[in-house]
């Protein structure tokens, strides 16, 4: 997903962030990178993701 500078401007305003013009492209690039990766992850792992619980591994329950 290519996030545009205008989209970053709107989203950041929704979060109460006022980003300077000089930062917008950098933020858009980073956000695009991670959201694009997630699209690829969904393609590769989608069914497994559906079956998994979103539980952070802070109380390991495995046999180790």
């Amino acid at each position: 997903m290519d996030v545009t500078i205008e989209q970053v401007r709107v989203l950041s305003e929704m979060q109460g962030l006022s980003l300077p013009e000089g930062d917008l492209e950098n933020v858009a690039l980073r956000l695009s990178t991670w959201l694009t990766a997630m699209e690829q992850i969904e393609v590769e792992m989608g069914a497994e993701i559906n079956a998994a619980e979103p539980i952070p591994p802070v109380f390991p329950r495995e046999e180790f």
Partner: protein
Amino acid sequence: MAATNLTYLTCIEQAKLLKTREISPVELMKESLDRIDRYEPTLKAWITVNGEQALTKARQAEAEITAGKYRGPLHGLPYGVKDQMHALGFPTTLGTRVLDAHEMVAPYDATVIKRLAAAGAILIGKQNQHEWGKGGTIDFPYGQPRNPWHPDYDASSSSTGSGIATAAGLCSFSIGEDTGGSVRGPASCNGVVGLRPTFGRVSRHGGVMAGYSSDTFGPLARSVEDVAAIMEVIGGHDPLDVLCSPRPVPHYAHQMNGDLRGMKLAVVREIAYGDGVDEEVVAAFETSVSVLREQGAIVEEISLPYAKWAVPLQMLSTDADVASWFLANYLRDRYDRFDVGTRTRLASSALIPASVYNRAMRARTVVRAQVLDAMRKYDALLTPTNVTPPRLIEAAQESLGSADDVIPKLIRRRIAHYPFSLSNVPAMSVPNGFSKDGLPLALQIASRPFGEGTVFQIGHAYQKATDWHSQHPDLQKTLSVA
């Protein structure tokens, strides 16, 4: 390489001399402080040093040891901590310009600090770091940290000063913090041993961190034995940290017998031989694998195809956790006071939709399951700690100019760290060679949850067969280049 002197001895070697009173804690402390005076103007490993207080405590330690009240192997050793945990009497700067002076006053000692004090270790000061412990700082408020092997090179992030100070013999050991590689990266780039413990093994109480599902405190030292000894002191249950494990801490020394016969290890193909792995790194890694085989280990190669997704998944989950904290604290009203590298990272993570965060957390579970499945078949997994040798400072900065910068600047330096951060398993970096430019390279050993003993066993056996960890930077040469 410089000749070994007192400050380059390992903790265990220094401890033997202190216990038998061949040296005194005061002598060792003075040596450390003298080195800080000489080399700190170039290296910028520290934010705050209190030499007077450290010398007072060294005199107390000397009196105790003389009176026969020896507390153990850390008694009288000078150490430093990444400036991300509270220590009474020292400001907690977090390496940022965001905080005002009155907001840096430490309210109490972190549990790690208390435990080290009880063991007789002496805190010299707080160490330089990337802002708030987030990698990616471009302009350091307390000075540009420099690699002690060559001042033009990066010393990694984010426990940067902790790696530099330990490698340069400015202290006996350091405590860093590792969310996504912040102990292992500096350990690798500076040529020391660094451990990310299992999440829950070491109390986080007194740390200033917001990646609640991934943050860990871990030691950096000049040998595996040292790291094990430190872990015996700082590990263990703490009721002040609700996520701290009640499991007892083993006596790790019993496992470090140098014998790897019967142990099954696996090289992670996607990390060790993936795109962009430097050929010098591969060569050093393969030599390390041969050494472990000679020690009796069975080493095979495995595939962890989901490991490649660890970096984006950590960014989409833990970084979003962190960003949510900063949205409520400072990011909205002090945005301009953040370094540009930190604030753009936090801002982008603050815009991740909750639905994507949820999917990333689920996917994290899937990736972790793949890592743990491998660990059911093997005692430990092996990779290079970093897939490239240390880079020039400017080349290592996360100053994104275009999409071409994403892989080399955002992903490649994290690719070997994040699969084990995301899985919350112990992972240790051990020096395993040098690049043609004389910069340190390292081997990463990861094991099962609470498998620190296995990691130490392998690392110790490796260090018995090699001498990479015994080589130290020639700081006079470093000063002459700077």
